[in-house]
């Protein structure tokens, strides 16, 4: 292995450790990473061979890494998509910023039990989904957007997600 290949491999390994990281749009996208443009920055994400995604594991009946409260995290992601991906004929990325309050009100339709507790859990999930690049939470502005990883969803796999979001009730007006 030449020195250059080793340096590149280390850069890709570093990107894997750091998760979704944004660099200025003027910075070069290291070879072997995917660049997802976002205004004046670019998100660096891993690439997989032949466009495969980890969903391949399902075909081999092989479980992926488990998530804490996976169902809750999926519901919060669905609620956020319902608010941020409003033009369903387009791609989910880059979507639109939506108030966190709207996402929590959509989530309230999907959660059972104590409403205050559900909001607190959901806020924690929004942070975790941001850490992993599925959403972009702006806590100061109290808004959320779809994350750069949604740009990696293959277009032909989005039909069932679109159907689900069409069926999901939208956010309730805040001062109804």
């Amino acid at each position, binding site marked *: *292995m030449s020195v250059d*290949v*080793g340096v*590149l*491999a*280390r850069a*890709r*390994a*570093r990107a*894997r*450790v*750091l998760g979704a990281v944004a660099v200025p749009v003027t910075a070069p*996208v290291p*070879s*072997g*990473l*995917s*660049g*997802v443009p976002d205004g004046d920055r670019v998100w660096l994400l*891993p*690439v*997989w*061979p*032949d*466009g*495969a*995604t*980890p969903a*391949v*594991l399902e*075909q*081999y*009946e*092989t*479980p*992926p*890494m*488990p*998530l*804490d409260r996976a169902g809750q995290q999926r519901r919060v992601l669905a609620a956020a998509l319902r608010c941020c991906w409003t033009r369903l004929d387009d*791609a989910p*990325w880059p979507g639109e910023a939506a108030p966190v309050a709207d996402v929590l009100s959509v989530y309230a339709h999907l959660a059972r039990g104590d409403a205050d507790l559900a909001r607190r859990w959901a806020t924690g999930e929004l942070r*975790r989904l941001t850490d992993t690049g599925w959403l972009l939470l702006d806590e100061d502005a109290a808004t959320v957007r779809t994350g750069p990883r949604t*740009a*990696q*969803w*293959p*277009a*032909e796999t989005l039909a069932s997600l679109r159907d689900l979001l069409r069926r999901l009730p939208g956010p309730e007006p805040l001062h109804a």
Partner: protein
Amino acid sequence: MFPGRRQACHRRAVGAGRVRAMSDLFEGLLRPYDERRRAELVAAYMAVEHAAEPVPEVRFPALREPALRRALEEMLALTGRTLVRAAPKEWTSGYRDDVHAALAADPSCTPPAEDRAVLTLVLVHSVAIPRAAGLLGEDTWRSAHPAGADELRRRSQLPVGELDAALRRLRAAGLVTQVKAGAGDAGGYVPGPQFHRLTPAARRRLQEELILAAGPDSPLAAAVRTRRAAEAQQGDPA
């Protein structure tokens, strides 16, 4: 159960028109193979990289056949990874030893001190102590002896909120697994699935670190320090 019907079904262009993926990364290595072999290599690559646990080679021809396994090893090396045999006929992937050393020296790639402290406590209570008592093998990092949550609270010297946050991050990273309390068992934390991904050299290094953490004044710890000093003098990072 076996590939056949699903071969090549995951070949497709990534996000055409939306995201410019550098999908040529693997092309040079995959080009010599026919469609079937290529799909087998890609499936095995995704499985060792993304499955929670090591995958059995009986399900993945690219893990079973030495020539394909070499190609898979080359694919992984492109991103600083390597194949790890976690058990006879079971495989996963991990960081190459040279890459691991570079990442560990990079502060932005290391977890916060409190996470490392809590992980060390979990390893001391779930692995080092059972191992010293003869309940665990020498070279295993999987344990059926959870570090109790109470024990972690008592020993960590961290406020409960910080301890819980560290445990949550460690769980999310697959570094610890929570064991629910059962009949006659208080539950707690054991090393998580990431411990399958250690190379033999990484396992040895971790074992030495655990000796230094759990018994810094022991003769074993002195032997580790002496050997490391000798290696450092020889300029051998391993």
